[in-house]
C-alpha cells in the first residue's frame, strides 16, 4: 500500500504522543475503537478556564493511517474552543492526509476520538 507523504511524516514523527492524568479536572479523555478491529485511539485534551484546548496527547494502536490521523488531530485541536474541536469532520482529516478509500475509517475514528474527549471533559464539568 502506498502512503501519502503526509501520512508517512506523521507516522515517522508523530506529534504529541503521550498521556495526561485521566483524573485531572482539566483533562478530557476519549478512547475509541477495538483491538479486534485493529484500531484503538486514545485522545486527550487539556482545557483552560476559557474552554480553549491548550494541549493534546494521543496514543494509537493501528495502521499507519490511524496513527497519522490521530497525530494530525492533536495538532488541529490545540487553540480551538471545545465546540470548534468537536466540529472537525473526518472528511477534512481524510483530505489533509490523502487517505485512500479503505483507510477512511481511520479518519472517522479520529473524529470520534475528539468528540469522545470533548464529551468526557464536559461530563466532568456539568
Amino acid at each position, binding site marked *: *500500500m502506498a*502512503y501519502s507523504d503526509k501520512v508517512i511524516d506523521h*507516522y515517522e514523527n*508523530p506529534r504529541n*504522543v503521550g*498521556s495526561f492524568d485521566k483524573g485531572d479536572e482539566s483533562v478530557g479523555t476519549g*478512547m*475509541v*475503537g*477495538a*483491538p*479486534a*478491529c*485493529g*484500531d*484503538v*485511539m*486514545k485522545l486527550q485534551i487539556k482545557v483552560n478556564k476559557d474552554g480553549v484546548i491548550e494541549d493534546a496527547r494521543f*496514543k*494509537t*494502536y*493501528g*495502521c*499507519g493511517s*490511524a*496513527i497519522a490521523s490521530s497525530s494530525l488531530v492533536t495538532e488541529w485541536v490545540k487553540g480551538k474552543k471545545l465546540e470548534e474541536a468537536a466540529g472537525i469532520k473526518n472528511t477534512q482529516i481524510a483530505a489533509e492526509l490523502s487517505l485512500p478509500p*479503505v483507510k477512511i*475509517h481511520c479518519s*472517522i*475514528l479520529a473524529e*470520534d476520538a475528539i468528540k469522545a474527549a470533548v464529551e468526557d471533559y464536559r461530563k466532568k464539568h456539568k
Partner: protein
Amino acid sequence: MKLPIYLDYSATTPVDARVAQKMIPYLTEHYGNPASRSHVFGWRAEEAVEQAREEVAALVRCEAKDLVWTSGATESINLALKGAAEFYKTKGKHLVTVKTEHKATLDSMRELERRGFEVTYLDVRPDGLIDLNQLEGALRKDTILVSVMFVNNEIGVVQDIPAIGELCRRRGILFHVDSAQATGKCDVDLQALKVDLMSFSAHKTYGPKGIGALYIRRKPRVRLEAQMHGGGHERGFRSGTLATHQIVGMGEAYRLAKLEMAAERERIRVLRDRLLAGLNRMEEVFVNGDLERRVPHNLNMSFNYVEGESLIMAVKDIAVSSGSACTSASLEPSYVLRALGRSDELAHSSIRFTLGRFTTAEEVDYAVNHIQAKVARLRELSPLWEMHKEGIDLNTVQWAAH
C-alpha cells in the same frame, strides 16, 4: 550487507545463479519445440525436458513418467482437485481438506462446491496440525479425495503425511498433497508415502516462476479429467507447448536441492534459532504454530499490543510479510492464525519470517535489533501497551466495535 534484507523466502526465492546459467542456452541456442519430432532442434529440447523430469523425480523419489509439467503449484492443485473430482464424480461427491490450506486449494474446493460437490473443511489444533481422529471421522462412504498441504505456507508446520496417506489408502480414497513449500526443506519420498497426487512449484526452491509439476501415481493408477485442452501434450493431462528453459530451470533447482538440502537445512535451523532467541528477549511475543513439527526456515510470531500493518510499515529494512492481510480492503486478520484459535489482536500483529539459502547471521542480527527497536517505538505509541503496563486485563474492557 545490503538493505532491505530479504526474509520472505516462502513468498518466493531468488533463482540460484547456477540455475539461471543452465536456463539461458535454452532460450537463445537450443530453442526447439520439444514436441518437434522431425529435427535435431526438437530432439535436443526434448532431451533436456526429460533430463529435468528425471531430476525432479529424483528429489521426490518417484518415477519420471509420473510427473506432468504445469505452470506452477496453483495449476497443479487445480488440475489435481478438479481433474480427480470430475473423473470420479460417479463414485462420490464428497471431498475433504483443511481450513489452513493455501487459497489455490480452498478456492478450487469452493469452485467444486458450486459444481455440486460437498466439501468438509477440517479445523486444526492450536499447534496448527490436524487431528487424525477428526479426519477419520470426516471420511464418508462417498468421499473421493482428501487434500492436505505438506508444509503450511504461513506457519511452516509439517502435517503427518505418512499417517494421512495410510488412512486414505485403506479406504480407497485419493490423497492429494500440496508440496509447494516442502521441496528442499523436507524429505519427500513418494516411494514410501501413500500419496496419489502431489503438487510442486519451482520458484519456492530457487527455480524460476511460472513452472511446476503434478505427480500423478500410475500404480495404483490415478485418472484425471484434463483441464487444459490442445495438442495432447503430457499424456493428454496438460496440453500446451512445454517451456523448455523453465523446465530446465526447475530440474536444475531440484537437482541442487537434493545435493545441498541436508547441509542447508541445518545451517538455516541455526539461523532461525538465533532469530527466535533474539526476538524472545522481548516481552509479550508469541510463536504461531508448533515449533518442533515445522520446517527450519519459518518463524511466525505475534507481537502483542502492536498492530500488524504499522509494524510491517515500521520494519522497512527487512522484507517480511504480515500474517495479517490488513492491506487488502477486507481488513481481515490471517485466516490461518484465526484457525489456530489466535485472538484477532494477535492474528493482526503477526510477522512471518522465512529464511533461505542466502540468509546470513549478520542479516539475522540486524533484523533482531531492527524489530526490537521498532516494536518498542510502536508500543510507546500504543494505548493497549499502556493499559497492559497498568495491569488492566484488556479482555475485561468494553470496546466499541466499529
